[in-house]
């Protein structure tokens, strides 16, 4: 167990190191001079030279990377060019809003997707099953930004039930969470269905039925519990995708999260903030995957035995 923990942690650290290489390369390996891009077209040559010097752009690439890495591990990505405060601060103060949105979306998607997936598996090849599979594929084909706009047209503009954008009371969370959640529903339906089909064929389910348990108890207590394990793991792996969806959802609803601050920073060429935000989201994804894997190991004795 300890060996696994050490190996898995080392793997995550290696990955985070690679992330710093990409985040560094983002600015330094793509064509164009970062200093002149950041300052815009009106900048004088002196200003560009000063910023190049301040950013260390006149040093060799390796020196620059060492400097970047040394600061990044301490959470120092430099000062935001627009806000004139540490980029980390700019990003971190928006993190709670993004986490709230993601959690809301997750809850909504699970509440809708799980029951549909379970019923599909139980009533395999029925009209319901075909219908929900088509629904899942449609859900995965729906652009989140479009769904968001259409929800605004219906619920904010015409019915006037919910606010158009911004954050505030719980009513502000509904539309963004539904928008981002719909993106996941399709995936949850498909994963739950195939995992349930797997489990329903197992001996212990047959045993539970043979004991004379009510079908409901067999499905909920015996099958679903086991079927959830792979569903949760695979969903953990999709977190990067969900955060990506959050970027767009936040832009549509002017939800003041990390995604919106990043998109704004990209427009303004505020690269310290962009680098910091990309790095922080990667840290989130990597550490949650680490936690899911480790928990999986602690909770499921079958996996521990196979080490």
């Amino acid at each position: 167990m300890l060996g696994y923990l050490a190996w898995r942690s080392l793997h995550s650290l290696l990955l985070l190191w690679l992330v710093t290489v990409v985040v560094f390369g983002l600015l330094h390996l793509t064509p164009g001079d970062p200093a002149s891009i950041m300052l815009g077209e009106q900048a004088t040559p002196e200003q560009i030279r000063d910023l190049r010097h301040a950013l260390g752009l006149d040093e060799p690439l390796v020196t620059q990377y060492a400097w970047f890495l040394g600061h990044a591990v301490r959470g120092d990505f430099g000062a935001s060019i627009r806000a004139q405060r540490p980029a980390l601060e700019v990003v971190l103060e928006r993190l709670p809003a993004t986490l709230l949105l993601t959690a809301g979306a997750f809850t909504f998607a699970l509440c809708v997707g799980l029951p549909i997936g379970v019923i599909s598996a139980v009533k395999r090849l029925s009209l319901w099953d075909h219908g929900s599979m088509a629904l899942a594929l449609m859900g995965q084909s729906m652009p989140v930004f479009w769904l968001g706009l259409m929800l605004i047209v219906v619920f904010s503009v015409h019915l006037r039930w919910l606010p158009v954008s911004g954050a505030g009371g719980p009513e502000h969370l509904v539309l963004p969470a539904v928008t981002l959640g719909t993106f996941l529903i399709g995936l949850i339906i498909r994963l739950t269905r195939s995992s349930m089909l797997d489990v329903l064929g197992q001996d212990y389910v047959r045993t539970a039925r043979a004991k004379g348990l009510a079908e409901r108890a067999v499905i909920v207590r015996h099958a679903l519990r086991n079927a959830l394990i792979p569903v949760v793991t695979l969903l953990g792996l999709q977190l990067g995708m969900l955060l990506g969806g959050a970027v767009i959802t936040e832009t549509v609803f002017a939800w003041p999260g990390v995604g919106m601050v990043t998109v704004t920073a990209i427009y303004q060429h505020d690269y310290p903030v962009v680098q910091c935000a990309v790095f922080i989201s990667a840290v989130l994804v990597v550490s949650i995957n680490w936690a899911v894997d480790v928990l999986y190991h602690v909770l499921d004795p079958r996996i521990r035995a196979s080490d």
Partner: protein
Amino acid sequence: MTIDARAGHRRRLRRFFRHRLAVIGLGIMTTVAGLALFADHIGPRSPTAQQILLRLKPPGFADPRSGKVAWLGTDHLGRDILSRIIHGSRVSLVISLPAVVVSALLGMTLGLLAGYHGGAIESVVMRCVDLQLAFPFILLALSIVALMGPSLRNIIIVFAITTWPVYARTTRGVVLALRAQEFVQAARSLGASDQRILWRHVAPGVVSPVLVLASFEVARMIILEAALGFLGLGVPPPTPTWGSMLADGRDYLRDAWWIAAFPGLAIMLTAAGSNFLGDGLRDMLDPTLRNVEG
């Protein structure tokens, strides 16, 4: 081709056409491709012609002077939305298809080498796979496109270099399974070289899963291209793109819902077509692959 192979071929085709969604998907994709190819002849009006007097007209509006009907309405500059959607299909396909082909070929080749040879190349490829999963793709794509400048070519390059690990992961998995099979061992004991085993015996087995994955990826690329356009980092105007049309419509949600509604419907239908097609291909090529997409 032997009789057996032909029969298998026919059986697979039958399985595909029995798959109702797959046939719908094929129909949608063929239609979109047709629209893109013949946009100049099909589009009722020029996609860029502005008629300020006819701005923000609702779907079905008939111009009292020319009698021409704007079936899907007009936008804030009086441009015909139907014509713009028809022309917009071009950008959508011209970006998503090459991006998918390049990343699939790259990912498949690296996945084959990683799975077959193992060692250093496998470590490098698999770390790239991990890295790709660690980033919110859209953030990465957005930042790179913003730095390189949004153009057709740059967007295709960014999509291709950030998505190949998806194919490499699947390919490597299939190769690991194939490598242990008897026919590979038989080829080796007959003295075939590694090169020959890899390209003649293992590679053909990888094609089906990659094809299935690629059709799902086309849907994802279409949506991502639209997302870039929506965020203002897609192919620049005046070229009509579905994403930028949505962005235009965003400012007129209150008075002219149709500007945003119809391009979004086009994106969703096309992406669904590609997803349906992938589902059908999966059933046709190998029913045991039901979880390729994951």
